């Protein structure tokens, strides 16, 4: 968006660049809902859309009269470069009278594209103006109405268009003069007109702070619109709405596999969960494996639990295999890792959250405290009294319980990991490693869920409040003590291909061949697939570099890259169970966002103050 404004401007003037930057910032702050790629904002007067008696200077912001100025036939106007976008909600610009010239016959206002420029604004149809010599307002008519005071040299006149109720008012030296026009048509351009020699005016489309406090005026309308939304009558359907909301929350929790939380929520709200608990836990386990970079295990688990699923989704299978290859390079996939003998997952810097809630930017983290932005690590937050049944998963809070048992190369106290059931001796020596994957992750989830409940149940009300600040704080505080084996034990510096193990590297290369074969097979069956080709190319390219983590395609190794795949797999599983592949909550959010954008396109100004972001906090 910034580039758009800068593009048309000559380079080289630092002062001007600074002003340009200030303009961009101000416009963005004033009109956040405007998409300038669709509807650019006025930033200067148009050198093309003016009468010949008008001269422009100072980056097309200063207007002066250069005609004879004998009578009204010598009037001349200029329009801004673009019409006012409806998504502004409330639009404002100011004009400073540098000189009133001979007679001060100046008009400030608005006009539609195509209105005669050999006139002052206000005299013709679809043209509106406030004139300095008599203080009258002209509403598409040659005769004015008494409106405000006269204006002259030194005065700053502002023009505010309210695109919510389609009215316009002017300001003089920062004081509002009251409504001048109502029922304005859409797509009006800021316009000024001059009529006698010596008249000079400067426009401010946001290059400088405005004299009038337009943001205060906007805040009133924002409050009005928000109030309107908050008070929207739902009448008889109150119960219905509540059920819908509960369903949305519940389905969201289920979708992301917050099993215990979903159960607790269902109990509290006396609603039903559509999916049975085992299924939720299975999905959750698979997601966890993908997010931990153990894609091979994830594929195995999927094939075991949902036979036929991957066969029906060859694209998904291919993506998984591709990822598995990348994780082998990373040294995180179990097929490779079991050969390295290194601390499992020691390179895995991905926080242990199994969820894939959408990101809304950092300011919104507590909307979905289980989300990726706020790692809700299970083990680390277990209160002491809850840990009786899993003494082994204590994390750094219980170093003695773990470090003594650990024989891994890692110095991490949290090296005891549930994931080692099928691999190295070192982990088998631990009391808990005998547990199956499923069991361990299961109990973990319960811990997390229980904690979740603890954190949010408030006093006697027993009402579950999603994402209270208090809750968030607990989660944050435990960030450092995240157990789960994700502690990054300094291996970032010593990262090596496949963990530096020869056998592992051989296994990887073999896997690469298998992958190549799979790709060729898919190509035969379904025809060429550019995406697949690219994916494969990128993955294999990693091998071309001595330090794959710091190479042009190294981005692939970032653990966050697992998220989209994880989400796709989860959706595929859900779809196979005849459940929605997207949670309704996200659908609703997406729809609301889309609606607001649609409002801008159909010129409903209130969209500016009804942004979805405003309600996510």
């Amino acid at each position, binding site marked *: 968006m910034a580039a758009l404004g800068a593009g048309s401007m000559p380079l080289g003037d630092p002062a001007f660049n600074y002003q340009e930057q200030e303009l961009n910032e101000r416009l963005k702050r004033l009109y956040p809902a405007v998409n300038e790629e669709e509807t650019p904002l006025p930033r200067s007067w148009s050198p093309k859309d003016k009468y010949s008696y008008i001269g422009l200077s100072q980056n097309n912001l200063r207007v002066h009269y250069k005609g004879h100025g004998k009578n009204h036939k010598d009037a001349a106007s200029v329009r801004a470069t673009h019409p006012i976008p409806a998504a502004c909600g409330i639009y404002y610009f100011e004009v400073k009278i540098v000189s009133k010239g001979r007679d001060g016959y100046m008009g400030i206002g608005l006009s539609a594209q195509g209105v005669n420029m050999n006139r002052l604004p206000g005299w013709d149809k679809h043209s509106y103006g406030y004139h300095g010599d008599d203080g009258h307002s002209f509403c598409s008519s040659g005769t004015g109405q008494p409106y405000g*005071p006269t204006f002259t040299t030194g005065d700053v006149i502002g023009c505010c268009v309210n695109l919510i109720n389609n009215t316009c008012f002017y300001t*003089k030296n*920062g*004081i509002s*003069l009251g409504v001048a026009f109502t029922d304005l048509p859409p797509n009006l351009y800021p316009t000024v007109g001059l009529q006698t020699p010596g008249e000079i005016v400067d426009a401010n489309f946001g290059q400088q702070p405005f004299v009038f*406090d337009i943001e*205060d005026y906007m*805040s009133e309308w*924002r409050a009005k619109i928000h109030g309107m939304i908050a008070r929207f009558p739902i009448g008889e359907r109150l119960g219905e709405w509540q059920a819908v909301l509960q369903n949305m929350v519940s389905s969201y929790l289920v979708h992301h596999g917050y099993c215990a939380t979903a159960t607790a929520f269902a109990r509290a709200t006396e609603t039903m969960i559509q999916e049975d608990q085992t299924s939720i836990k299975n999905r959750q386990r698979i997601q966890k494996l993908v997010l931990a970079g153990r894609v091979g295990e994830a594929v195995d688990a999927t094939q075991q639990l949902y036979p036929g699923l991957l066969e029906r989704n060859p694209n998904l299978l291919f993506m998984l295999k591709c990822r598995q290859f990348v994780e082998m390079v990373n040294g995180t996939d179990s097929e490779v890792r079991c050969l390295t003998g290194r601390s499992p997952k020691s390179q895995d810097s991905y926080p242990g959250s199994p969820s894939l809630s959408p990101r809304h930017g950092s300011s919104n983290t507590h909307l979905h405290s289980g989300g990726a932005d706020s790692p809700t690590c299970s083990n680390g937050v277990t209160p002491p009294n809850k840990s009786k049944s899993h003494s082994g998963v204590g994390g750094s809070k219980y170093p003695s319980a773990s470090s003594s048992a650990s024989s891994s190369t890692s110095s991490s106290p949290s090296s005891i990991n549930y994931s080692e059931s099928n691999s190295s001796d070192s982990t088998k020596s631990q009391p808990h490693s005998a547990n199956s994957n499923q069991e361990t992750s299961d109990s973990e989830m319960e811990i997390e869920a229980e904690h979740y409940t603890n954190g949010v149940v408030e006093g006697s009300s027993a009402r579950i409040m999603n994402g209270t600040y208090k809750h968030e704080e607990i989660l944050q505080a435990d960030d450092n003590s995240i157990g789960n084996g994700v502690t990054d034990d300094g291996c970032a510096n010593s990262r090596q291909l496949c963990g530096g193990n020869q056998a592992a590297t051989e296994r990887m290369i073999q896997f690469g061949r298998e992958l190549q074969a799979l790709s060729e097979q898919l190509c035969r069956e379904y025809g060429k697939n550019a995406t697949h080709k690219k994916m494969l190319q990128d993955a294999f390219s990693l091998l071309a570099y001595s330090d794959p983590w710091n190479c042009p395609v190294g981005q692939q190794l970032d653990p966050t890259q697992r998220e989209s795949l994880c989400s796709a797999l989860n959706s595929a599983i859900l779809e196979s169970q005849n459940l929605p592949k997207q949670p309704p909550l996200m659908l609703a959010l997406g729809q609301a966002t889309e609606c607001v954008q649609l409002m801008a396109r159909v010129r409903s100004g209130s969209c500016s103050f009804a942004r979805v972001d405003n309600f996510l906090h």
Partner: protein
Amino acid sequence: MACLLEAPLRISVLSEVTATSRHYVDRLFDPDPQKVLQGVIDMKNAVIGNNKQKANLIVLGAVPRLLYLLQQSSSSLELRTECAVVLGSLAMGTENNIKSLVDCHIIPALLQGLLSPDLIFIEACLRCLRTVFISPVTPVQLLYTDPTVIPHLMSLLSNSQRTQEYITQIFSHCCKTPEHQTVLFNHGAIQNIAPLLISPSYKVRMQALKCFSVLAYENTQVSMTLVNVLVDGELLSQVFVKMMQRDQPIEMQLTAAKCLTYMCRAGAIRTDDNCIVLKTLPCLVRMCSKEHLLEERVEGAETLAYLMEPDVELQRIASTTDHLVAMLADYFKYPSSVSAITDIKRLDHDLKHAHELRQAAFKVYASLGSNDEDIRKKITETENMMDRIVSGLSESSIKVRLAAVRCLHSLSRSVQQLRTSFHDHAVWKPLMKLLQNAPDEVLVMASSTLCNLLLEFSPSKEPILESGVIELLCSLTQSDSPALRVNGIWALMNMAFQADQKVKVEIVRCLGTEQLFRLLSDPDGNVLMKTLGLLRNLLSTRPHIDQIMSSHGKQIMQAVTLILEAEHSIEVKEQTLCILANIADGNTAKELIMTNDDMLQKIKYYMGHSNVKLQLAATFCVSNLIWNEEEGSQERQDKLREIGFVDILHKLTQSSDPNLSDRAKTALQQYLA
């Protein structure tokens, strides 16, 4: 301690007393403290929202017993707290309930309770006190009888949000006089309450803000202190500006605007400060708009009128802000014809506020029009404005009449309006009517307006004269109020200016020389000046001078002597010398001066005075005495030469003041001819 109740109330309520109510009261006397506690709790549940039950319990004497239990140190804290809660609930009822509670001395008992160390109990007591004090029937003074109460309340402010809310609410309702403001100020109200403006609780912020508005009202000391207060590193005026932001609740915007208005009127903030011009004034204008509640519109308009009253620049800005002049015209449209048909409730509501709206609008018009001619024109050109003022003058509500006449007074300062709209609408008629038998404050404004209507270029002057106004004005000069005496004599002065002999005689006859001379010794300087003015206007044109001097010459000369001899301002002496000069212009009246050697000496003295104005007036007087064309001028010239006037005149021809030297030369020429 018996509860005093008005007899009729007791009878009417007693008839409805039920056995259950009695049962509640009886349980308060149970010997088992646990049962008493349960009784109080049950009573609490029984009275919530039940005004009848509340009245019953009060009649049955529950209050003294509850107060006894509340004060008894043997009572458990829980019991004492529950008692305070029940009393608070009783106070929530009707005004009669409050009266009964106050009569039972609930206030000292609750104030005593505030000394307890227990916060819950304190909060219950404060809550009840708050409810009692915000009632209009409670005498505010009760808060100030014990001097230890205010400091103790200040110290409780830090305890909890509840104590903050209740205490600030008590303060804002009980600060009614400058004395109250001083007491609160001296006990650190500003330092203690200022931090509450950024409390997380809206209620606390709001009540704290209200406190500042009542503290600052017409109080220079408080206002001057307020401008320097910092809240969280920010100047208080900026905190108030933030509270006026347009997304804040209207109540908060309005109260913050009031605070800044009062600080500005008290001289603590300049009228050209941006926080007044760009924030407070626009905020108040906004409050006048149709989209707000009638109460808010009244308050906004009244505050706006007060803010701009003394400053013409603010008046000019306001007159162009948001079509204010036209917006106020809407204030006269209540109750609207629509409300009468559609909705009885709305009609009732409109009727209740109609007077308030009208008087508020008149006040704003009065302020707007007090200086600027263009604004006055704009006001009189507003739809039906003059008709509205005229009918406002005869409304039943005194507030409306007063505001209407204030508005009329502002507009009457315009020569153009006096000549046109005032005459067209015969405003003098309702004005004259208003002058009969009105309270002093209305009389002051009305008579002041009348002064303007009696100016010689006013077309209303004639009809007013014919309506027998002289008697009324003469009676005003006898008023105890200096303002009324000034206006009375001022109007007479204007009336006498270039008036017919008949009118002048009528004025003198009606006023009576005795009253005239009483006014010449009036303690109020303004009255004296206007009386001299009247005399001067009466003593103009020769026949009039001679006629009046022939009948009242002795007294007038006496009065002039007295004034010239006494300590008076230059203006008074100048005016007196001008009267003397007028007398010297008469044919026969001259002799009254010529035969009075003492007076001649005085004139001589003032010709040599250090003040040019007095020299000029005295010289003028001499010039009139020696004027050639008149009979006996030679003798007078001779006499004055003997006394030494010629020498003085010669000296004065050398004066550096051109007027004076000219005047002296003209006088000397009389000798040469």
